[in-house]
């Protein structure tokens, strides 16, 4: 029962802090906006290349493929410092989602071909899982890939594809045959976004912005060498990844930083001559969240510790996803409550001085887009089903 940092850990923490302070310029965290789409991509890639140069781009990977070889304490320190510094996590689709599938289930040739571009951020990946008829019920997917000699011919629609507008590659779950169970007959394909027959259609979300897309496939020819593992076994590969994905959804460090921001703003928002942070009722609303987050930080550490002791994250990773997203949504709500009447303003060209407020637009955007957190990555309802079945045995 001990999480004290060793002298080495503290030295490592200082190194991380120094590196972030020296190298991070903040551009990658500017709010998404279709107006500044190209700049945003360039900023992200630029930052990720710095991380790559430092050797820190892939803490989760095995060392042999380019991982850092950190202890779980070091990973925890790195994540904590990143979140507190307000630095966004790396774009996960390449580094955290497709790469583990490739280095775990891919051929040597595939590893050699794809991993370097992911590490260097020269290749931008996106994820082709969801479909209009298959949301949280992933196995209901119907995009087809028909075997035709050297190629699969892919037809169908993927939806909710984040940053498809930037992507060079997409990894897809596709149906290669009809199994008895719906999970059978699904394959895992890597598809070059420049292949003829692919169309990307933007989806504007309720925050008024564009990060999501629909991706349409019309007779898209994909070389069979881009199939991961065996045909019809793709579900197995994807599923192994989902628990990993969920452990990343607690976002404790990010929530801690947002909560600090909330406290700051509560000191400057005044009501009846007193700062909101002195309001006993608002204090209770803040501490409802802060206490839950303090607990979640240790829940996450417990999961990390048990993973470090050997073993994949179990179904308890669903707990991290549920609580983590509920906490971040709760913080968004309080930010918006602080913004009061200003929360709805699309003030456009007005300066914050002319509008009379400075964080309302951000608060609104986070609240609105943040509603998705309990929907994507397997809705929170599905996560509760997972715990009921796999943990409680119901």
């Amino acid at each position, binding site marked *: 029962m001990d999480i004290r940092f060793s002298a080495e850990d503290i030295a490592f923490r200082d190194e991380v802090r120094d590196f972030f302070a020296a190298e991070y310029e903040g551009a990658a965290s500017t709010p998404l906006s279709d107006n500044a789409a190209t700049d945003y991509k360039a900023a992200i890639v630029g930052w990720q290349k710095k991380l790559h140069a430092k050797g820190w781009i892939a803490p989760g990977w095995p060392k042999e493929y380019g991982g850092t070889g950190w202890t779980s304490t070091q990973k925890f320190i790195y994540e904590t410092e990143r979140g507190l510094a307000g630095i966004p996590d790396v774009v996960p689709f390449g580094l955290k989602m497709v790469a583990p599938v490739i280095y775990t289930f891919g051929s040597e040739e595939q590893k050699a071909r794809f991993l370097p571009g992911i590490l260097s951020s020269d290749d931008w990946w996106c994820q082709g899982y*969801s479909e209009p*008829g298959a*949301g*949280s*019920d992933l196995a*209901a997917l119907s995009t087809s890939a028909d075997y035709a000699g050297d190629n699969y011919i892919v037809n169908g629609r993927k*939806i*909710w594809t984040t940053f498809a507008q930037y992507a060079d590659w997409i990894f897809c779950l596709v149906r290669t045959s009809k199994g008895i169970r719906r999970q059978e007959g699904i394959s895992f394909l890597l598809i070059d976004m420049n292949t003829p027959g692919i169309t990307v259609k933007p*989806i*504007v*979300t*309720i925050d*008024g912005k564009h990060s*999501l897309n629909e991706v349409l496939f019309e007779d898209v020819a994909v070389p069979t060498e881009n199939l991961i593992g065996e045909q019809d076994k793709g579900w197995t590969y994807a599923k192994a990844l989902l628990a990993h994905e969920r452990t990343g959804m607690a976002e404790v460090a990010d929530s801690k930083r947002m909560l600090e921001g909330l406290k700051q703003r509560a000191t400057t*928002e*005044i*009501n*009846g*001559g007193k700062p909101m942070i002195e309001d006993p*009722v*608002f204090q209770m609303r803040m501490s409802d969240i802060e206490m839950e987050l303090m607990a979640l930080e240790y829940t996450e550490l417990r999961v990390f510790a048990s993973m470090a002791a050997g073993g994949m994250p179990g179904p308890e990773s669903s707990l991290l996803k549920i609580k983590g997203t509920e906490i971040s949504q709760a913080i968004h709500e309080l930010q*918006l*409550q602080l913004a*009061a*009447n*200003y*929360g*709805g*303003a*699309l*003030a*456009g060209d*007005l300066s914050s001085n*002319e*509008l*009379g*407020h400075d964080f309302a637009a951000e608060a*609104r955007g986070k609240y*609105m*887009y943040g*509603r*998705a957190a*309990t*929907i*994507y990555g397997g*809705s929170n*309802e599905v996560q*509760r089903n997972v715990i009921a079945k796999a943990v409680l045995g119901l």
Partner: protein
Amino acid sequence: MNFEFSEEQTMIKDSVSRFVRERYDFDTRRGIIESDDGISREFWTMFAELGWLSVPFAEEYGGFGGNVVDIAVVMEEMGKGIMVEPYASTVVVFGGLLSASTNAALKEQVIPSIIEGDCLGSFAYMEPQSRYEMSDVSTTAIATGDGYTLNGVKTVVANGGTAHKFVVTARTSGEQFDHSGVSLFLVDATAPGVDVKAYKMMDGQSAATLTLTDVAVDQSQLLNAAGEGMDLIGQVMPQILIGLSAEALGIMATLNTLTVEYSKTRQQFGAPIGSFQVLQHRMVDTFMGCEQTKSMLYRGLCESKSETDAVALAKTVHALKATVARYGKIIGEEAIQLHGGIGMTDELNIGHYVKRLMMINTSYGDGDFHQKAFNQLSYSA
């Protein structure tokens, strides 16, 4: 004991309802929002012709002579269509303040033009530092001969970009938070020294920052005795809160209906999601929340009409607005959650209902603000 609408109320209700159904579909609404004005002048003229703009005004000014129940009837139906025309702002709030005004000349001058559709109005009370505290007024009105000179900034003024006239709160005496010393002035949007910076709100309506620089206002433009503006506002507040809450109720009921219907068709795991017990119970909770909100609205309507003392009515309307906040939030969030990904899109109507509901929540005080006001009345010694 009855909770039915009168024949006349039913006629108004049907009139608005039919308009929403037949003329105000979602694409039409989107087109209006994207237009330069952001509202349909054509429709506003029709509202005048249909008599909707006359509802709460006294017959002596050409009004329908309606009461708060009539306002609620109109607003609830408008909520179902999330109409962006400034009915609440012009008729319920601005019109309400004028109706309560003791300045007969001013009333004769302005009310008929509201009814005829020629005058859009707005109430400019919020300031950068004031949050929801209406008596936190730092805009000044300095007496000068037979008038006043106004200086100050008003923020998030509802429909400020289209309003012809504003009722403005300004301090003629007292300190920043004093209840007394706040005066109400009618100010023309085109008066020298008035600067309006308009912008869109997320609900498709608009707002503005109103900057007053040495604006000269004649004393004939005072709505009631100088320094007693807060009393007049207090008289109108039940009508404002009830009107907005009725609009919210229309939205909440619509969101619930749309969500229940969607849950019957959306398939996941081989069954409509409405067959999953967890979602059923949550839809039952949103249904009950809507019913409770309706009951609280009806309580407010009944008490407005009976001899209930002012404190009891004030408690009820604070409770009503707080109830709208509580259940509005749950209903909005559940509507998006149960629609899943599609509920996150700008294309679907769900998000737009939710955004209007959110804006109603912050209009004239959010849930915590009104619940605390309720506590003040209910639990202070």
